């Protein structure tokens, strides 16, 4: 936390409840890992425009707002950003004052343009001194100046030192220029870092030991012990009474405490206990003890909590969402946490103060011991101005004049690093936006022939990973129609599968389920036998697993079964796929999972203990089915088979596994939702009701629920035994088509894995992804959402046959059937926050893996079944691991909505969440009019028509022709195979 001075606003609260309410927005909002739900890392800043929010948050958290300038420079070199992008962004930004003459001959626009073409590194501190004194900086012009400019500078130097030998003229002139710039540079305070307002910061500045080094290890241990969900065999005593009470009881004991810093702690905790203080009183007292003025309290508390923000955030999660606790909810309170942290801080800081300033010292003594910040000339700015004076087309004579010099420095400073990175980020986004908008427009401008009449239909999740699955399905089996709907399919339920311990919600996080759905085995005796067997096996492995941690039992286990561990050890290390098959084979040898039925239809008004309805009434089922079918526009022309495909992901060595599952089911697996939806749509009474509402589902139509595992590309099919025999052949054909699509999907995914085989053989690719899913040593089981960049809301006709590089959330929506925007409102209300949440979490974890993400996975250490630490005892790491985001392109979600601008405006007027995300530009919104075909980009204040940039759209046979052999992100192309043209399948199968 730096730069807190002068940051206090008058409106910040001073009472404990107000402070806690205020600061609780800043602590990370990540749930325990088993229900990982993607969300905007900077959710607390959404009331600000994106570019202001990232900068404010960066200041507050010491984080990065954008990619580094070096990264952008690399993008410019690689052609990922073109110079026209920079020019267009600058023209946009400077449309009013771009032509301002900032110096003779130099327009502001030209200066900035030149600056973005010369992204040199500005050395800091000692590195700057070294460059000045050791590198011959004044001997020649800067290396990035072009030839014409070199001649101009040389001529200028000649004019300035006519009496000097030619070889000395340039060094002489450059040095004189540097001296003038250095003398004119404004004063700045250095060092800027570590000027926090916590006592710990002042103590460090005053030369004392870092008290956080004493307090944090203990606080981490206490938090972890309190929140533990089942790692420890012995739980913290009295934790049912709350964190503060438990810590007081434990550390108020009259036991010897060898830690010198903690000498006064026991007495303090006993005093609190005896006085019967509540957390709020303890907080106030500790703040007074630490000498914090009331107007500083809020910032002080925020910095204190953020020094171990992950743990504070987890306390708050347990406080606000006890239902999300993995095993056992606990009476956690952020206030308790703060009270404990401040008590420890106060004890440690007092001790350090005594050590530093004497036994009777006060905080005033400490403040006077802190060395004042030194003021010095901003030589970094002078350096930048110096180099730019050589490179940019500026009149060097004008810099002789002090006013000119000051103007030049101001101009250079006004386009400082942050501002440059902001512009480069916009240019980076612009390139991608152009690629996809041009692709869409060109694809729509020359409509391909319509595909043949479908033999089956398939409804997928809108997930970007299904974007390519759908394309491959359409390419390998042209007679199919696909749709995208949020992967819970409108079935917002609390689901409890056979043998599961507790129900879990399978619906978007913003929804609280009202229905409880479970399954029963067809034959009760089979269920009993199966459960019993599983139970015995489970108990056996629980006993062995626990025993290996204990002394006596452990040695028995080690000596008796230890040698047997050689078999899994060898197999897991060398042959992961075989190892998993053998272990699964052993488990399933005697016990097949029994055939089950959903308990879906509610009879009467049966409710669970939590007040959830058991199942759905027929009318409710009809609502669910109607809502989905109307939204995706599938109300007529239903085929014999309609697949409903939920998805999820299974992998090993992956604490963040739940982040790979379906976001629309709140980080769960969407198979049960698909199964329930199909059962609802097949229900005769539901169909009767729907017919009354104008949706006639033919008697020949059968809905089939299924589940797509996006990690190993396998499919699971539900309730096949319920299907009429007449549909069997059609289903077989659909299953074969899906199997082909999954195989090709595996092939396409493999192109992004460096360690995958480069092959045309799609079956080999499938085997490779199967191995990844079960490999203990694989930190990148699949790509997850790493490629997400767009959301396209509209008819599939607009995107079918367009290669979108599995980057798009594809949402089916028929604008023709929705004149007043009612359906669009519902769609955007779900898609925009969820899509933006996923996209922004990837953005922030990528641009700053240290502060916003959780860094590399390799040292991660699962703690308490709730989160990961880095190695031994660190803050709880939040955000996404680097391995998950490393191929991501950090851009804001580009949402292309096929609707009239007025309709979207109406939706925004009704939905404040969507409006805020669009207006503050947390997503890039583009509206695509279905009547005129014109696209409008949302810019500050309204919609602006988009002009197509390039009219070229490559056509290929099937997508493997386009992506084959490529490892990086790709642009758009038209795939003829999706319409029955070209080769049917690209990959050899």
């Amino acid at each position, binding site marked *: 936390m730096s730069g807190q001075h002068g940051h206090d606003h008058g409106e910040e609260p001073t009472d404990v409840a107000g402070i806690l309410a205020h600061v609780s927005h800043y602590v990370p909002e990540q749930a325990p890992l088993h229900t990982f739900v993607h969300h905007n890392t900077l959710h607390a800043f959404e009331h600000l425009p994106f570019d202001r929010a990232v900068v404010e948050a960066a200041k507050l958290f010491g984080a990065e707002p954008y990619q580094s300038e070096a990264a952008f420079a690399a993008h410019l070199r690689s052609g990922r950003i073109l110079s026209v992008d920079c020019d267009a962004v600058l023209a946009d930004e400077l449309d009013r004052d771009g032509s301002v003459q900032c110096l003779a001959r130099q327009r502001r626009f030209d200066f900035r343009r030149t600056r973005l073409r010369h992204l040199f590194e500005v050395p800091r501190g000692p590195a700057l001194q070294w460059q000045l004194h050791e590198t011959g900086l004044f001997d020649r012009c800067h290396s990035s100046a072009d030839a014409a400019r070199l001649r101009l500078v040389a001529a200028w130097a000649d004019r300035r030192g006519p009496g000097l030998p030619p070889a000395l003229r340039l060094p002489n002139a450059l040095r004189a220029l540097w001296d003038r710039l250095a003398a004119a540079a404004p004063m700045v305070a250095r060092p800027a870092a570590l000027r926090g307002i916590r006592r710990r910061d002042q103590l460090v500045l005053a030369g004392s030991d870092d008290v956080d080094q004493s307090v944090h290890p203990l606080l981490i241990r206490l938090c972890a012990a309190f929140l533990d969900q*089942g790692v420890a*065999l012995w739980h913290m005593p009295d934790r049912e009474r709350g964190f503060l009470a438990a810590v007081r009881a434990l550390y108020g004991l009259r036991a010897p405490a060898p830690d010198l810093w903690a000498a006064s702690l026991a007495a303090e905790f006993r005093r609190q206990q005896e006085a019967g203080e509540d957390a709020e009183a303890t907080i106030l007292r500790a703040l007074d003890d630490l000498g914090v003025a009331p107007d500083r309290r809020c910032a002080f508390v925020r910095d204190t909590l953020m020094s171990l923000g992950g743990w504070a955030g987890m306390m708050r999660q347990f406080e606000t969402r006890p239902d999300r606790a993995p095993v056992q909810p606990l009476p956690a309170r952020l206030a308790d946490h703060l009270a404990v942290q401040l008590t420890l801080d106060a004890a440690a800081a007092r001790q350090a103060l005594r050590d530093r300033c004497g036994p009777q010292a006060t905080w005033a003594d400490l403040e006077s011991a802190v060395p004042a910040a030194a003021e010095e000339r901003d030589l970094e700015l002078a350096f930048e101005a110096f180099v730019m004076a050589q490179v940019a087309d500026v009149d060097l004579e004008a810099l002789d004049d002090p006013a000119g010099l000051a103007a030049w420095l101001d101009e250079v400073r006004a386009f400082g690093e942050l501002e440059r990175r902001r512009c480069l980020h916009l240019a980076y986004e612009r390139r991608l936006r152009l690629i996809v908008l041009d692709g869409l427009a060109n694809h729509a401008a020359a409509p391909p022939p319509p595909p043949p009449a479908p033999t089956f239909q398939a409804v997928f999740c809108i997930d970007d990973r299904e974007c390519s699955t759908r394309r491959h399905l359409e390419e390998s089996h042209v007679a199919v129609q696909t749709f995208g709907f949020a992967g819970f399919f409108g079935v917002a339920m609390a689901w409890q599968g056979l043998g599961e311990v507790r129900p879990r919600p399978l619906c978007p996080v913003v929804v609280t389920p009202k229905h409880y759905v479970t399954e029963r085995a067809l034959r009760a005796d089979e269920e009993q036998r199966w459960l019993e067997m599983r139970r015995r096996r489970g108990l056996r492995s629980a006993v062995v697993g626990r025993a*290996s941690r204990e002394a006596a039992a452990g040695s028995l286990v080690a000596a008796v079964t230890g040698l047997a561990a050689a078999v*899994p*050890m060898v197999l897991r290390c060398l042959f992961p796929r075989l190892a998993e098959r053998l272990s699964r084979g052993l488990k399933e040898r005697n016990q097949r999972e029994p055939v089950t039925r959903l308990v879906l239809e509610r009879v009467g008004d049966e409710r669970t203990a939590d007040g959830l309805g058991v199942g759905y009434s027929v009318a409710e089922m009809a609502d669910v089915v109607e809502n989905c079918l109307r939204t995706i526009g599938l109300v007529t022309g239903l085929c014999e088979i309609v697949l409903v495909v939920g998805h999820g992901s299974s992998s090993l060595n*992956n604490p963040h596994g739940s982040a790979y599952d379906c976001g629309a089911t709140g980080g769960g697996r969407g198979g049960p939702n698909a199964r329930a939806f199909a059962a609802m749509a097949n229900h005769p009474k539901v169909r009767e009701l729907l017919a009354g509402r104008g949706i006639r589902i033919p008697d020949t139509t059968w809905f089939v629920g299924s589940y797509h595992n996006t990690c190993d590309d396998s499919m699971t099919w539900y309730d096949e035994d319920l299907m009429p025999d007449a549909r069997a052949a059609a289903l077989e054909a659909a299953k074969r088509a899906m199997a082909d699509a999954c195989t090709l999907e595996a092939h396409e995914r493999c192109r992004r894995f*460096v360690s995958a085989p480069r092959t045309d053989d799609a079956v080999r690719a499938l085997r490779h992804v199967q191995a990844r899913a079960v490999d203990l040593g694989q*930190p990148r089981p699949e790509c997850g959402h790493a490629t997400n960049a767009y959301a396209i809301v509209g008819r599939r006709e607009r995107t079918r046959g367009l290669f979108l590089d599995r980057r798009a959330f594809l949402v089916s929506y028929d604008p023709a059937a929705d004149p007043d925007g009612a359906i669009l409102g519902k769609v955007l209300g779900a898609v925009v926050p969820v899509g933006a949440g996923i996209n922004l979490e990837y953005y922030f974890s990528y641009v700053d893996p240290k502060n916003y993400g959780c860094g590399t996975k390799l040292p991660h250490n699962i703690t308490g079944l709730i989160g990961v630490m880095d*190695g*031994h005892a660190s803050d709880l790491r939040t955000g996404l691991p680097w391995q998950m985001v490393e191929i991501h392109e950090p851009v804001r979600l580009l949402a292309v909505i096929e609707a009239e601008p007025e309709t979207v405006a109406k939706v925004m007027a009704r939905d404040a969440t969507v409006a805020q995300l669009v207006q503050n530009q947390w997503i890039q919104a583009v509206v695509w009019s279905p009547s005129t075909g014109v696209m409008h980009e949302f810019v500050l204040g309204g919609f602006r028509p988009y002009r197509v940039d390039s009219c070229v759209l490559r056509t290929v046979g099937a997508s493997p022709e386009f992506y084959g052999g490529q490892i990086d992100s790709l642009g758009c192309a038209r795939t003829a195979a999706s319409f029955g043209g070209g080769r049917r399948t690209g990959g050899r199968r």
Partner: protein
Amino acid sequence: MNVVFLQAFVATAVLLPLAAAGVLALAGWFGARLGERAISAVVGVTYATTTFVAAAAAVLGFFDGRPIVVDFGEWFAVGHYAFRWTLLGDALSLPFSVFAAALVGLIGAFSQRYLHREAGFFRFHLMLALFGAGVQVVVLAGGVDQLFFGWEVVGLTSALLIAFFHERPKPVEHGLRAFVTYRLCDIGLIGAAVWLHHAVGTAAFVRLDGAPWAGVHVPDAGSAWIAGLLLLWASMGKSAQAPLGGWLPRAFEGPTPSSAIFYGAISIHLGPYLLLRSAPLLDANPGFAALVAVVGGVTALHGAFVGRVQTDIKCVLAYASMTQVGLILVGIGCGLRHLAVLHIVGHALLRSLEILRSPSLLQDYRHLEQAIGRQVPRPKLALERFFPASLRPWLYRHALERGYFDAILRDHVVGRFLRGFRALDRLDRKFTSWLGGAPATETRR
């Protein structure tokens, strides 16, 4: 079987890993940019071959019946002292050699995938290869002098891999902590070598009649006590025995596979290995044997208690390792040498697999819970239940603070030295400012 073949096998088991580490180190030194496949191939082929030759030597040597001795001759001599590098392949060393080489090879194969695209890929594999070579030097050493070199290599690679993520301060701190502990305890090993030369004239392992394998042998009881204590001290550091074991949970900062092979499998068991080589001292000296058992017993009890309250999987596994190594020491102290060997191998396999699997804890727990059909049950017969309820909070806090060993060492042992040095620093500054007439700038702590 020709003895020369056996000798060649044993020599290869030491020289090949050394050569592989040397090749990698030279490649790194000259800036050759080896691909991940090439690096992994070097490690994999080396340790597969080493496993094979060591296994061949073990099997053939078993039928031959005599220990295999390889003599690389005299390397240097100072006065009365001469350093001969000899290797000893016998019933103790050859199984360990096979086992260690196989594990290094397996971890190498595992790490090819685990460390894929990590900036330190080369560094990790170089350290792994060097560690494997160090282990072979330790295991196949013909005496304490030779063993010492491998012992140091193991310690160094261990510390460097703890500090693998050196861009964060904590791993470096913890690597340093492990290194300091190792160095302090290495005094024991080098002291033992010196004492053996002084008392016996040689530090080579000799095989007594009826003993299953060769070992450190000292004829007179007093010297045996001294040599024994020094060797015990050396093995206490490497094997994280109480009260020096605070570095072990902190050592889990590196990538998971390195934690698995060092602290689950091999490095942690080198202490017991050294004590197995000291078997004659234990046999001749029941008091010393009892001391070994007591150190192990105290550690096991400490580890078992502290491990029960740990809430993160790596600490849990660290204390579980510590507990078992303590019990192995108890076994050695009680004379159950063959059981101890079995215990070491079984424990190493079990624990390293558990550590490799630790990132999958969430999935595993969920599956377990589903299989059982309710919350995973807590153990019924728990250690703490032997204590009255009023004592349990004390005990819990004691366990949560890891027996306060760290605090005592930091604030009351090391801290005393530091405070002393700071007092000297203040005196020094006073003196210089008196000399120079101007106040000297404060030395930053």
